[in-house]
């Protein structure tokens, strides 16, 4: 379609805009109240937009309030609504969404449909504090299998836990290995996702790991699940991120010119599964990425900055392919050497250090950084321009959602 509109449908998400962003302190073992961190981010975002809490009439969050895995959620809709005594017309919170940013996409749809005017979207984690000195908290996902005893695995976890594969590190490693096998991708290539992130983190005062890292450092790191080493895995953190999604025609008089939502991608056309997915070199992001470009006339070459989920480095490589920044199977050569994805490269990538070096804010960190870059507020790590088009994408395995954002003079 010449107007970027899918046949027979409107691009409803264009009725939404992003008007504010906020973030709490981010760190390892902050030992802060998870709700406190969450509210820091929420109040920061509301003020950033030039709104007050009386203006907020919607909430969207991922994954909602849950106790397990430890630290995976700092607060749900209920806690935030009540703490701020918000009067809501619309809200949503849950796990079964197109990735973590699926909650933001829900908010876009809600404001475009007129169900709300200004939606507070947030994601908060406190995995670093929750795991304490024990092993990585998120691996017990599915019910605390680490303790043995009488626990028995049900649901999807029955197909992984009996085989000593409790972590997404194992599952993503299987995808990476298949990609290496089919396309000749190497660890030396994949390293550049981690090295680029670390380099950018050096310019981000809130990043957790900022010390320089070399290719030798990367290759010498201990293996977690081949071909993924320690530096291919993101770093559990405490921190909360919030964004305000507003109805596009309700943004006059706000603090700054809003960021426009040009298109979103939410599709999953293969089996919703880590191990039964049809093509073991792609994931659901293959479908979400393709859908995004079906809803716009913009092309990958128009994108000035890309913030692509890196729960594990391989996921970023897969997003690069899924979003058409390079061809299928060409992710390795595309990132090789790191120049192309550097801050001054043709596609600046994960400019805040991503989850690999800045901390696992679980999806929302990428959207926050995309907005910061479009607004030209990136400080030392600002991409020159500033860029006018950004992609924020989150999720891996059967979870994937992405947004194409624009901010034009």
């Amino acid at each position: 379609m010449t107007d970027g509109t899918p046949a027979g449908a409107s691009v409803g998400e264009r009725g939404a805009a992003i008007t504010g962003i906020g973030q709490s302190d981010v760190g390892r073992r902050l030992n802060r109240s998870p709700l406190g961190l969450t509210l820091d981010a929420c109040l920061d975002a509301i003020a950033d937009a030039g709104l007050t809490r009386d203006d907020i009439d919607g909430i969207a969050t991922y994954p909602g309030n849950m106790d397990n895995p430890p630290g995976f959620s700092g607060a749900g809709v209920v806690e935030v609504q009540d703490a701020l005594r918000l009067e809501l017309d619309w809200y949503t919170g849950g796990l079964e969404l197109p990735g973590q940013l699926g909650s933001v996409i829900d908010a876009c749809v809600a404001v475009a449909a007129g169900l709300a005017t200004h939606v507070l979207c947030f994601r908060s984690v406190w995995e670093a504090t929750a795991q304490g000195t024990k092993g990585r908290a998120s691996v017990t996902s599915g019910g605390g299998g680490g303790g043995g005893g009488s626990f028995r695995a049900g649901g999807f976890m029955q197909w992984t836990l009996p085989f000593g594969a409790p972590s997404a590190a194992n599952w993503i490693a299987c995808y990476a290995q298949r990609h290496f096998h089919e396309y000749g991708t190497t660890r030396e290539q994949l390293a550049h996702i981690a090295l680029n992130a670390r380099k950018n983190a050096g310019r981000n005062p809130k990043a957790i790991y900022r010390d320089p890292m070399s290719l030798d450092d990367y290759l010498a790191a201990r293996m977690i699940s081949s071909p993924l080493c320690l530096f291919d895995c993101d770093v559990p953190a405490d921190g909360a991120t919030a964004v305000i999604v507003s109805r596009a025609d309700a943004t006059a008089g706000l603090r700054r010119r809003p960021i426009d939502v040009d298109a979103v991608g939410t599709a999953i056309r293969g089996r919703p599964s880590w191990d039964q997915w049809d093509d073991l070199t792609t994931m659901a992001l293959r479908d979400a990425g393709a859908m995004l470009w079906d809803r716009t006339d913009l092309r990958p070459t128009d994108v000035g900055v890309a913030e692509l989920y890196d729960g594990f480095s391989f996921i970023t490589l897969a997003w690069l392919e899924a979003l058409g920044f390079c061809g299928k199977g060409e992710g390795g050569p595309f990132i090789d050497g790191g120049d192309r994805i550097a801050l001054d490269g043709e596609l600046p990538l994960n400019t805040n250090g991503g989850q690999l070096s800045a901390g696992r804010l679980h999806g929302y960190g990428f959207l926050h950084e995309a907005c910061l870059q479009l607004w030209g507020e990136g400080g030392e790590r600002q991409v020159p321009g500033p860029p006018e088009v950004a992609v924020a994408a989150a999720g891996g395995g059967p979870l994937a959602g992405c947004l194409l954002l624009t901010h034009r003079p």
Partner: protein
Amino acid sequence: MADKPFRVLPKVTSDNEHFWRGGETGELRFLQCTSCGYLVHPPAPVCPRDLSRQLAPHTVSGRGTVATYTVNHQPWYPGLDPPYVVAIVEIEEQADVRLMTNVVNCDVEKVRIGLAVQVTFEQHDDVWIPLFEPAA
């Protein structure tokens, strides 16, 4: 891996016991649609191909191919010592039926994509965990 490493066991129900207890008689079993022959995994009450509700356990050869794998080095559980191979195996009868499993009785460095493997079971209590070893 030790002879009987620690394993988190599955919750056995009437929906999955054909799978988790097939090893008692050395059989790898999947639900099969009795009208079109499609193997349905994980088990579900409706055939996703022809929507038939007539499904019954079916024993397959136990042969398969390593579709992909990883060598896990992280000690996730006491009593399950790394390194060990976590693989996704496609079964011979139907390539879109896959099992996440371990490849055992084999040097971890010998495992490759495309390796032909054969099921072997490891009993824990009332469950027979299907593992795979290189085919003879």
